[in-house]
């Protein structure tokens, strides 16, 4: 019998029922909840007289809407405030653990799951948010769902699921110094396109993936959805085990060793076959910047803004023209000559301690270019506290960055952190869609190191270019 992929193992282990002619019913080990995609789901439970089946498998936090001002500052927007209150009311009524704004465990849902040790290898994890793919870095099957499915999981702790196809993205060789996980995943999305991963679960493999820290692996898995894949996976290894050791949700002592032994089985068998295999040479990669209005519209930082003439089809030509018009860019312009108004370091893609360290190392002893607004939004209170313990907040503040409270913030502009029309932003987030960071705003996706160098230079720049 041929070996099984990691995806197949995770899927098979969670089968509750296989009704004839219907999708498989899968058990869900962990359901993460936030304020935006849950209110209508809780309402549905109330209307039907249903309860939350497993509050001990459900964890909520407030992240999308929260202002990044200190918690003592009230939420000014009444609609946001109401949504945050409704989350508190729902969690109290249904017995769900909630980390609200200001709580020591609060943060972006995809940052706190791993850092609290509640996201673990071998689990099925869902959340009403497409970046749930992040948790796949731990060897868990994790994917985003809509509000109807949120209600479904609250009520039944299961989801009907068709088996996905499998894709192996193997990254051979090593990343050059100054090239990180974000550059890698942007290059992968550029290669696959926005729909290349549709219907698939991607397993990232190869030397460059094994060399990544857990935080880097989360950055890669996080953006799987930008290539159309609902989930990304990375096999468990000692990096995974050591990351989990000592985290609050993880057992201790002999129980940890027992768990770790089980976790180590969450790898694809050597002879497992994937439906699609893609190979990428890590050593050929350099820092990346998106130029357009989807994450696959990406070029090397050393490159130029593409031209509609480069298009392979009339539809692509139309898409390039539309993106250039929205982004206010001229074909052939070197990215290094494109100036920015705002630099945002944050989001579930790049707001963990390692990201903040990478950015701080670039800005230390330097200052933000005149006229540029630069902000750092740590992914969680735990990240914020750890960064402050190392003095990173002081490095950023001295350079002229704002050091703010945790949340999704300017990644999607549901809180007051938004671009104004026409403003151009170098952002460590995951989506450069039209209006994503504020109506009329122009987003370029970059790594934390490039974002930091860009803040100093006032235009897109690599860390090596900014002199102390």
């Amino acid at each position, binding site marked *: 019998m041929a070996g099984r992929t990691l995806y197949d193992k995770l899927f098979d282990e969670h089968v509750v029922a296989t009704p004839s002619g219907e999708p498989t019913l899968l058990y869900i080990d962990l359901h993460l909840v936030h304020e935006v995609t849950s209110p209508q789901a809780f309402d549905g439970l109330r209307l039907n007289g249903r309860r939350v089946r497993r509050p001990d498998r459900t964890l909520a936090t407030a992240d999308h809407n929260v202002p990044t001002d200190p918690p003592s500052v009230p939420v000014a927007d009444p609609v946001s405030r109401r949504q945050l209150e*409704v989350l508190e009311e729902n969690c109290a009524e249904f017995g769900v653990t909630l980390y609200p704004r200001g709580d020591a465990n609060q943060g972006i849902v995809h940052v706190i799951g791993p850092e609290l040790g509640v996201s673990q290898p071998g689990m099925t994890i869902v959340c009403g948010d497409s970046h749930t793919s992040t948790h796949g870095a731990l060897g868990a099957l994790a994917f985003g769902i809509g509000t109807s499915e949120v209600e479904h999981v609250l009520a039944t702790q299961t989801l009907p699921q068709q088996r996905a196809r499998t894709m192996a993205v193997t990254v051979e060789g090593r990343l050059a110094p100054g090239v990180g996980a974000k550059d890698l995943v942007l290059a992968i999305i550029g290669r696959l396109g926005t729909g290349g991963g549709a219907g698939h679960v991607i397993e990232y493999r190869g030397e460059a993936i094994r060399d990544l820290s857990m935080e880097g692996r989360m950055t890669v898995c996080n953006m799987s959805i930008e290539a159309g894949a609902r989930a990304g996976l990375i096999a468990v290894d000692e990096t995974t085990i050591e990351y989990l050791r000592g985290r609050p949700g993880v057992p201790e002592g002999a129980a940890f060793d027992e768990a770790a032994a089980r976790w180590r089985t969450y790898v694809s068998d050597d002879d497992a076959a994937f439906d699609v295999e893609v190979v990428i040479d890590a050593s050929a990669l350099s820092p990346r910047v998106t130029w357009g209005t989807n994450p696959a519209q990406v070029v090397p930082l050393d490159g130029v803004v593409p031209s509609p003439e480069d298009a392979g089809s009339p539809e692509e030509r139309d898409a390039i023209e539309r993106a250039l018009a929205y982004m206010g860019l001229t074909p052939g312009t070197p990215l290094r000559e494109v100036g920015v108004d705002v630099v945002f370091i944050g989001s579930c893609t790049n707001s963990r301690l390692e990201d903040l360290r990478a950015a701080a190392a670039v800005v230390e002893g330097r200052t933000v270019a005149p006229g540029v607004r630069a902000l750092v939004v740590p992914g969680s209170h735990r990240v914020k506290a750890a960064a402050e313990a190392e003095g990173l907040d002081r490095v950023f503040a001295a350079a002229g960055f704002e050091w703010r409270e945790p949340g999704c913030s300017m990644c999607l502009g549901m809180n007051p952190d938004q671009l104004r029309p026409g403003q151009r932003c170098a952002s460590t987030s995951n989506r450069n869609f039209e209006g994503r960071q504020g109506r009329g705003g122009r987003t370029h996706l970059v790594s934390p190191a490039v974002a930091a160098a860009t803040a100093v230079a006032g235009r897109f720049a690599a860390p090596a270019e900014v002199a102390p």
Partner: protein
Amino acid sequence: MRPVHVVEGRAVPLGRNDVDTDQIIPSEWLKRVERTGFGRGLFSEWRDDPDFVLNRPEHAGATILLGAERFGTGSSREHAVWALLDYGFEAVVASSFGDIFANNAGKQGLVIVRLEAGALAELVALVTGDPARHVVIDVERLLVEVPDAAWHHAFDLDPMTRERLLEGWDDIGLSLRHEAEITAYEDRHAGETPVARLAAR
């Protein structure tokens, strides 16, 4: 969910590839705690442009939206489906869809029709030539039809989604038929969960 057998009416060609759910319903609309009233937010940034196709009088009252490649990529927000339904659309035809969007649509009775690019182009040409053309999407027979042009094309829908649309089934009710199996699974996997461990600290 209400049963859906046939969707019919006018169709609007949107054109564009990669219409992400941030475009369908911008995030400022996601703060609402209700399930209704999202129609006003549908494509709200594009609707500021008076020439945007939905603003043209000949397309008023359309029930079918014609997309292109990869309609509904990006964010998992089901609000995108609610906004399309609330605006008056009952079906979206495109050559491919974002997986989460298509899944959400199925839960709400928004009919998702995948037509290969050639057939979609024919349909778009028919509707562009005469915006008042009557288009029929038959979920029972899995056909898209333009009767007055004698044009029709078959489409695929997985049997479960088709059945759910036709019967108007509630997914949660369907899953709860397996209550005994769910409980048996939970009994086999009993023990303190990480969330419980965390909450106990």
